[in-house]
């Protein structure tokens, strides 16, 4: 049991009370394998008797449609995009993540706000501004930073869902084709993540390995966290 800790002011109008669950975040570049790991973690934790909930960017029903529409047009500016993502984040945090943590769930978050700051920084958005915006964010119990070389990302994506416009940062005009743009853009993103890693105390995970060894490495960090606190529950379902 612990009182919630926010990076900034949080939600001053709301009495939150102690959070009995755990917030675990997986961060890292596009194609690094976060969602694969989250699926495996969920299965494992549930088998161990924990109640698990997961969340990820743009999954808020409040903003999902608006973001999709905005991204399909040509008039979306960097500040507007950034704020749309902030709205998505705030909605999920207040209405999903916090209630789940109050109820004792382990919440697995596929990205948190660090990815958004990293992406915005590459689009010229002021970093200080972004960081203060996320003063509403709850400090996670564990932030796992899946770190892989850009060549690993390319392999995984080409054999997976393919390269896409936004993940290649085509809006930044770094190159004239999807492949070169992807390489350039993800390299920039990695630099941003490395910087954020220092600021927010990420726990690095070697994601150049195969899926299983990555999973084992992540499990060790999570076990350490859970042994320290959370009692294996009486599933609050």
């Amino acid at each position, binding site marked *: 049991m612990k009182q919630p800790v926010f990076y900034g002011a949080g939600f001053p109008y709301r009495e939150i009370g102690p959070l009995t669950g755990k917030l675990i975040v997986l961060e890292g570049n596009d194609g690094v394998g976060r969602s694969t790991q989250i699926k495996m973690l969920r299965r494992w934790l549930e088998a161990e008797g924990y109640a698990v909930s997961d969340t990820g960017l743009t999954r808020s029903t409040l903003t999902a449609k608006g973001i999709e529409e905005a991204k399909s*047009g040509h008039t979306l500016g960097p*500040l507007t995009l950034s704020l749309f993502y902030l*709205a998505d984040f705030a*909605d999920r945090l207040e209405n999903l993540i916090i209630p789940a943590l109050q109820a004792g769930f382990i919440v697995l978050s596929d990205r948190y706000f660090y990815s958004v700051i990293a992406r915005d920084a590459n689009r010229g958005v002021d970093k200080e501004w972004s960081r203060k*915006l996320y003063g*509403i964010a709850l400090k996670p119990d564990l932030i796992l930073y899946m770190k892989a070389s850009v060549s690993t990302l390319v392999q995984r994506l080409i054999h997976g869902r393919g390269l896409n416009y936004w993940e290649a940062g085509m809006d930044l005009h770094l190159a004239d084709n999807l492949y070169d743009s992807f390489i350039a853009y993800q390299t920039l993103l990695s630099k941003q993540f490395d910087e954020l890693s220092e600021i927010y105390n990420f726990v690095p995970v070697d994601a150049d390995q195969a899926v299983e060894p990555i999973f084992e490495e992540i499990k060790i960090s999570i076990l350490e966290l859970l042994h320290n606190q959370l009692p294996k529950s009486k599933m609050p379902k």
Partner: protein
Amino acid sequence: MLKENTTKGKLIVVEGIDGSGKSTQIDLLYKWLQSQGYSVFFSEWNSSPLVKTTTKAAKKEKSFTPTTFSILHCTDFADRWENSIYPLLKAGAIVLADRYVYTAFARDVARGVDPEWVRNMYSFAIKPDVAFYFRVPLDIAVERITAARAKLKYYEAGMDLNLSENINESFKLFQGRILDEYDKMVDEFGLTLMDGTQLVKEQQKHVRNIVKRVLRGWEGLPNPNMPPKEQSKAKAKARNSGGEA
């Protein structure tokens, strides 16, 4: 906090609680500036086509929290900022805004959002050349609104705050909180205080005198729809009829 205006344009905004008469005043100012041959544009709070579907749905379903309400109104502002207000100011136009960042600072803080946080969120915006704050006592504003409107809306009445079960009562309490926030901002941001209980005509005279002073000696973006001769004549007239020398 807000950036100084280093563009060639001029930014003039009106603020005040619902029923303060600010929209009437800015509408009159807009028409007058147009008639004087200026390149003048108008931007209204909560009007971005890109954000509209999201806000509309959330209002209908009452699914806003004070924070998401605050963020989506800033998203709306950011879209108007990036696609219209800022480029127009850069081009040397006059931009008039019916409500500006101060509306968010007043409303969102009245809803319990952290004042520093919301001020940071809007810190990409430029400090207006004039920010008129039309102040009216709460009772007068409430009377104007309830007389003009068949039904108050859920969020405008602050019903999400559970101040009262009665919508009229809630509206009054919420507008009172907003009024307090506005009053606090007069000094913080150097708002130009206007007496919103005066006659519309009197207020407009006052508004124009202040705007004339701001525009004196300023050369903005020429308006191609006005013959050049007319333009200089109109501007000379505007300059000469300015308040004090």
